[in-house]
């Protein structure tokens, strides 16, 4: 009996408790033996680098993924969440990072989306009642947003608030906010955070607040957990934590085989690319960086810091005006991928799906870059024999394991696909500079190490330069000669190899918090 009573007390204390949760994906352990308690009526912030397992954790809570091992308890009762609808019925609701509203419907209609009220005649929607009820809910939450205007005419922060109102349209006990401030402007963030705090005070609800912005987390949270490599490193009351300790906890243990880096040779080599201010996405961006011959330069920043956008603009994949790009001493005005490839620059995109034709053969995927050279005559017939030779050549040179050159490229492992993409680019005559956007994402450790070696090899033995974009600091630190830090679309800091210091770099990327 006594045990039962303590159990009951526990029930009130803990809204959610997970025990030894594990979730594996091919090649990675996304969540590794994680235990966590979310207390009653608290804002529990989860912070961690990209890939630390924050979003996988949320997806386990909302039933998008199923855990491989471990248990979940909601109010002390063991639960098993099958899908998002199941999570909602159990009182867990998530506000996703991407807006999940319908733009042409007004606020009230969006709040009642999927729960529409039907008029007495059982035929039509009762728009009037929907609006009234939605307004009641808005009043009870004390939010001031218009609900009779189509969402597309509202500010982003107002759209966000409407999504939050929607998450209170029902009896939810646990609210998960995934990077809720990422789409908000500078001035909207403060009031929004205050709103979250007030909601928590007035309503009987616990909130999981996911973010990688330290400043926000320190402001809004009651408790903070730090995730690293799918593990929970610390959970503490905010009052007991300092930003310094959080940063230290966020740093991952080095899992990378040390890559041999020959130093200093490049320091005097000539600059092949120099970039200043550029206009794209309707803003001016301060991209002060240069790339020398024979060096690997890392671009580090958190998600949304504008690294990918920057190279896409330089590569000509998005319109870019008033550019200040100097390539090999020549000013580049309107760049297009074709122009850049001819000038010796190639981009290996973030999504591997953007680099390959999945259902096409190895041969076709390799030769697509060289069809001009491989075809002859007025109608440009492809010389199939030479095409195959070239494909074999590339595959041998890059040490790729394959069964036939006409097999579909999607049958290769991710690491080998990436090697094909890099290998074929090497065959382009005069290629000098690689932009590699997250080239190791989704690969297992062995394949990652292979790619690192390929990169150093390219720089040291083949005189190429590489821009290495990554969200994983350890790999950048072990492979790169220099590092540029991105934040909000701009280059904000620069480190050379001898200045590399994890905490300093992470601090710069997190921005503004001492």
């Amino acid at each position, binding site marked *: 009996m006594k045990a039962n009573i303590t159990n009951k007390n526990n029930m009130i204390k803990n809204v959610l408790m997970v025990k030894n949760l594990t979730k594996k994906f091919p090649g990675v352990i996304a969540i590794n033996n994680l235990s966590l308690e979310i207390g009653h009526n608290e804002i529990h912030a989860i912070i961690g680098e990209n890939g630390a397992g924050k979003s996988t954790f949320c997806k386990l809570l909302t039933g998008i993924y199923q855990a491989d091992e471990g248990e979940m308890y909601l109010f002390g009762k063991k639960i098993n969440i099958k899908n998002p609808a199941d999570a909602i019925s159990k009182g867990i609701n998530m506000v996703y990072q991407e807006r999940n509203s319908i733009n042409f419907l007004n606020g009230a209609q969006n709040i009642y989306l999927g729960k529409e009220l039907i008029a007495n005649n059982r035929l039509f929607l009762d728009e009037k009642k929907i609006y009234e009820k939605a307004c009641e809910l808005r009043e009870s939450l004390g939010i001031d947003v218009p609900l009779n205007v189509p969402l597309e005419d509202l500010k982003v922060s107002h759209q966000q608030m409407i999504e939050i109102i929607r998450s209170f349209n029902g009896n939810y006990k646990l609210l998960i906010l995934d990077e809720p401030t990422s789409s908000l402007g500078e001035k909207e963030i403060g009031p929004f955070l205050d709103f979250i705090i007030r909601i928590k005070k007035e309503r009987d609800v616990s909130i999981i607040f996911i973010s990688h912005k330290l400043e926000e987390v320190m402001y809004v949270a009651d408790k903070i957990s730090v995730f690293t490599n799918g593990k929970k490193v610390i959970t503490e009351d905010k009052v007991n934590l300092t930003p310094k300790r959080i940063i230290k906890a966020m740093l991952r243990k080095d899992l990378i085989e040390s890559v041999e880096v020959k130093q200093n040779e490049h320091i005097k080599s000539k600059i092949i690319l120099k970039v200043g201010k550029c206009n794209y996405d309707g803003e001016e961006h301060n991209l002060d960086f240069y790339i020398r011959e024979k060096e690997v330069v890392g671009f580090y920043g958190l998600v949304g810091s504008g690294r990918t956008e920057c190279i896409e603009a330089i590569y000509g*994949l998005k319109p870019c005006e008033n550019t200040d790009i100097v390539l090999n001493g020549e000013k580049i005005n309107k760049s297009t*991928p*074709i122009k850049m*490839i001819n000038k010796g620059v190639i*981009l290996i*995109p973030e999504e591997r*799906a*953007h*680099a*390959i*034709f*999945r*259902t*096409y053969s190895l041969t*076709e995927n390799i*030769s*697509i*870059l060289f*069809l*001009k050279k*491989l*075809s002859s005559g007025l*109608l*440009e*017939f*492809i010389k199939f024999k030479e095409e195959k030779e070239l494909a074999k050549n590339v*595959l*041998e040179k890059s*040490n*790729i*394991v*394959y*069964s*036939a050159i006409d097999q579909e490229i999607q049958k290769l492992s991710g690491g080998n696909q990436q090697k094909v993409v890099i290998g074929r680019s090497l065959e382009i005559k005069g290629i000098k500079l690689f932009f590699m956007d997250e080239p190791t994402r989704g690969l297992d450790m062995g394949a990652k190490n292979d790619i690192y070696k390929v990169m150093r090899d390219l720089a040291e033995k083949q005189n190429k330069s590489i821009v290495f974009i990554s969200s994983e600091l350890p790999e950048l630190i072990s492979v790169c000669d220099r590092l540029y830090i991105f934040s909000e679309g701009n280059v904000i800091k620069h480190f050379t190899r001898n200045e590399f210091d994890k905490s300093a770099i992470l601090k710069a990327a997190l921005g503004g918090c001492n």
Partner: protein
Amino acid sequence: MKKNLLKKFDTKKFFGKYFLLMAIFFVSVFFGLKEPSFRQIDNILDIIRSGSIIGLMSIGISYTMIAGEFDFSIGAMATFSAIIAGKLLAYPNFNNFLLIIFITLMFSCIIGLINAFNVLVIGIPAFIATLGLSILLNGITKYITGGGVFYALNWPKTFVLLGQGMMFKVIPIPVIIFFLGFFFAWAHTERTKTGRYIFAVGANSVTASHVGINVKKIKTIAFVFSSFFAGFAGIILGSTLGSITPGMGDGNLLPAISATMLGATFLRPGTPNIAGSVIGALLLAVITNGLTMIGASFYMKDIIQGFILLISVGIIATIKEGKLSGVSL
């Protein structure tokens, strides 16, 4: 580092790849057994002749569908080119046949360029842009013909020769044109750089632009070839019928689309291709001809063709477990 793996024979895959050929084979055997005159060489050539118009049109639309776009205007385009050729040939002092064919085909290409402009520069979805132009062209055709059947007594004999003539007294000229068109388009798409680029753009336009392919240029080429082949089909259609009716091209539009859809199941399931489209068109022609031969009711043709389209694409969809991106509109 080649891994030596014994290739396992994959029945499912084999069935998917060659379903279309098997269908045409079994359907032909069925009709051949039931009606001996179906087997005669004359009849076989006649089948190919009747398939040539739909075949040429489906070659045209294959170009746009391979490139990941769609061209609804091929039907109206066929009528339009027939009326241009017919109208020009009716002028007594302007009857240089080859020159007029050339002018007509140039017109077709210009229509293709207009489609490309609407879709790629202005940004109207291909389905709507080509549908709009199709309606517009039909209107112009009706204006020129006055709404009725158009023919001219002073047409040179060569005009009807193209559709009704025979080579060596046995092979219908449309059959020869059809084969030439097929061979050109097949070699063009499967063997040349441009052809490879058209496939690449259709498979993944993002990747295509990443590897330095000018996506808009390639899609423009596809639209132009689509209209070109439709225009060619129109001239032959007018010549075969010996007169031009508004809407005659539209009658072949849906069969041409379904031939291409059938063709998308051939060899590379999910991707339209020229050889498949041609076989698809021939299958439809075999069914039409065979049903007439065995004296089936007039509605049977549509019922059977509809069935074959649903079943063949359905089989491929199940084999590929759901996604048939190339075949969807």
